[in-house]
């Protein structure tokens, strides 16, 4: 029995299905939850790929931090209604209010093209992964702090700026409540 394939299929299925639900869930909150499931699914895949550090970071950061930020956003923004109009029939879910069927067609088209590209390129790709490093965190740390030291610093500056930006934007609002 090829357990890894089974695990891969299950995890992949969960991730893709929850991603799909994020797109089509009528309720914003449902969509947010499904987003959390997607993040978790991706984290599981990382585990499957023995990238344990990344899996941890993914779960911690995405599933945790980003989700909370999303939830905050949902609560703080005064949405008229969190309920989207019930789509009519199974096709309704695919239609977007403004662009109609175009998004679905665009996404399918993109996927079809990528499918073709990968399948044509598939034979050249390796089938079995490399021997996993004993401890991927040490390895990533090496890459991060030696080879990519500068990008790392830039990323930190980016995060700092994002934090300050978010605070200032929302504070100004907070100060003068209209």
């Amino acid at each position, binding site marked *: 029995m090829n357990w890894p394939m089974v695990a891969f299929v299950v995890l992949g299925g969960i991730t893709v299905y929850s991603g799909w639900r994020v*797109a089509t869930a009528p309720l*914003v909150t449902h969509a947010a939850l499904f987003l959390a499931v997607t993040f978790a699914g991706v984290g599981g895949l990382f585990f499957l790929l023995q990238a344990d550090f990344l899996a941890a970071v993914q779960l911690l950061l995405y599933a945790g931090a980003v989700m909370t930020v999303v939830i905050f956003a949902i609560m703080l*923004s005064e*949405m008229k209604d969190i309920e989207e109009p019930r789509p009519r029939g199974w096709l309704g879910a695919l239609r977007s209010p*403004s662009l109609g069927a175009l998004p679905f067609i665009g996404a399918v088209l993109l996927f079809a093209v990528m499918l073709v590209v990968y399948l044509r390129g598939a034979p050249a790709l390796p089938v*079995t992964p490399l021997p996993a490093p004993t401890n991927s965190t040490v390895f990533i740390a090496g*890459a991060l702090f030696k080879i990519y030291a500068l990008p790392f610093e830039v990323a930190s500056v980016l995060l700092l700026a994002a934090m300050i930006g978010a605070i200032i934007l929302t504070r100004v609002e907070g100060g003068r409540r209209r």
Partner: protein
Amino acid sequence: MIAVQGVPLVDFLLLGALLFCVGLFAALRRSNAIMILMGIEVMLNAVNINLVAFSRYLPRGGDRGQAFAVFVLAVAAAEAAVGLAMVIIVSRRRGTIEIEEISDMRG
């Protein structure tokens, strides 16, 4: 740990592509700003899958893929934070975050 011997790299790439298209569909279909941001988050994750898969399967890269995935994570986090802050402001000022109404920047 379940070693992922049996799974060829192509499947991961296909999964990444599928998840990316689903994220794109989400971003395009939704009329609510927050939902769009969620869609974008999904697309970023799809990219991460590919990166990690490459780092694990392709010999030459070493673990650059994973390091790069970390950066993608950082960027995604920053983007989510700032994006949602702006959405909140827009909702406060405009009272709505429906994409159709927020189209002042048109031609």
